[in-house]
């Protein structure tokens, strides 16, 4: 009995730590992009190292959680879905790391008049991820509240799409002096930032189904 309790406690802590890593990763991503837009490369590099460490830690925790759940036969009926949930949530921090790395390596030339738009897009897209984390925590304690929590995820994902389209329209239709190669590069960066909210939406879709299954 004591063994069960100890394993359970440790596993719950690992879940919390995993989600903490993703949550902090989203904050670091925001700060990293801000640093880049403000021209502070040193700060960008620092944030990049930080997000790499968080992503590595999240991967390690994910493997440990999966291993513990198999070895101790925890949640046998929901295990496959929980693994999928972990995997897709991990993709969010992977995406933030990947996006920040791309920015660091490719050094996209973002015109001054677009910097605020980019910052807004980063904020809205990362917010979808921010709202997702409490919803995942809620799934494990009060699953009937998950749907309410996910409303904001869908809202921010939708806002991200709208804002991204707005910025792309601006780039391709209202900035004739910008070279086509730069326009294409900016579209690529926008796509990276956008994909954070897309990943959050994927997890939200999965979580909706999982919560319904648990409630019934």
């Amino acid at each position: 009995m004591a063994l069960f309790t100890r394993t359970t406690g440790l596993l719950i802590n690992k879940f919390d730590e995993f989600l903490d890593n993703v949550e902090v990763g989203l904050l670091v991503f925001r700060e990293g992009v801000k640093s880049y837009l403000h021209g502070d490369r040193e700060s960008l590099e620092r944030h990049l190292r930080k997000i790499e460490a968080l992503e590595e830690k999240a991967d390690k925790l994910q493997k440990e959680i999966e291993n513990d759940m198999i070895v101790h036969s925890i949640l046998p009926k929901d295990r496959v879905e929980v693994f999928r949930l972990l995997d897709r949530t991990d993709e969010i921090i992977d995406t933030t790391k990947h996006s920040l790395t791309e920015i660091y390596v490719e050094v996209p030339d973002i015109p001054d008049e677009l910097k605020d738009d980019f910052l807004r897009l980063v904020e809205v897209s990362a917010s979808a991820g921010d709202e997702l984390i409490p919803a995942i925590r809620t799934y494990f304690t009060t699953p009937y509240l998950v749907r309410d929590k996910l409303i904001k995820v869908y809202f921010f994902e939708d806002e991200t799409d709208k804002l991204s389209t707005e910025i792309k329209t601006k780039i391709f239709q209202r900035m004739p002096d910008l070279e086509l190669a730069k326009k294409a590069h900016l579209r690529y960066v926008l796509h990276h930032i956008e994909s954070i909210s897309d990943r959050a939406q994927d997890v939200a879709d999965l979580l909706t189904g999982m919560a319904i299954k648990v409630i019934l």
Partner: protein
Amino acid sequence: MIAFFITSGLFLGWSLGANDAANIFGSAVGSRMVTFRKAAIIASVFVILGAFLQGSGTSDTLGKLGAVNAIGGSFTVALAAAITVYSMTRSSLPVSTTQAIVGAIIGWNLYTGNATDGKTLTQIVTTWISGPILGGTFAVLLYMLLKWYKRRAGIHMIRFESYIRNGLIIAGAFGAFSLGSNNIANVMGVFVPAIDLPVIDLGFVAIGSGQQLFLLGGIAIALGIITYSKRVMETVGSGIFELSSEAAMVVVISQSLVLFLFSSVALSNLLNGMGLPSIPLVPVSSSQVVIGSIMGIGLYKGARNMNYRMLGGIALGWVATPVIAGVISYFSLFFIENVFEIAVALPK
């Protein structure tokens, strides 16, 4: 010679353990929440304890239905019940040891010209119907309570599952105890009036003939659990309604409560002492109580994915099993008495 004659009862006990332990630990083992080894050890220990400590009540009731007073008769009656259970199981027909033994005893009554006590028979048959209904009622109430608590407490899913896992073990132990105490009558009840073993005095406690038989029967049930219940346990769970772990625990507790109610001498005496109507001490089919409990939860959840053919199976079991066992018992008694010249009844 006694050792030979009780083999039919021990075989019944073995088959009961092999089949009915799945009602207690099937969901837990099938979903790999509890290992078979742990389940088998717990079930074996508690089934023996239940049979030994609390097996007399239901055996007395079967004795009132028909006091099989010759060991040849006891052997034949138990064998007829065992053949019925075995052949119906082979034909994939729903069968209950409880109903088979009752039918076989009535077959003995008819063959020997003993009157069947109508009051006791009515009491037994009523319990067969009320057992599953009571199981379903307990299951719905417990399930509602558990759901309410889970929603209110907001416990982490993993922690809740750990509680359920421990709960399944405790409920399984209670279930095994109740199964032993309630169903030992099916296994050894017919031998009690016919065999008089010397009392074993251990100094602090004296073990009478009946209790020695119950102990032997309990061991036979435990052997059935250890040697043959694994496959049944691993395939149980999706027959009627797919169970969540908490529903599985509720079903085990409901079944245990019903079996306990219908076998507890102390509870019966307590109710009597309070001037309330006592609960009849009657062996009930654990499988049918489990089906009643699962159906109760299924109906509460909106009756989706329900297998209503199971309900028809219970009703068929109430009628077909005693009739088949009674016929086999009647002809077997004739055969044993006339071919082997073994007395199947002693003159009163």
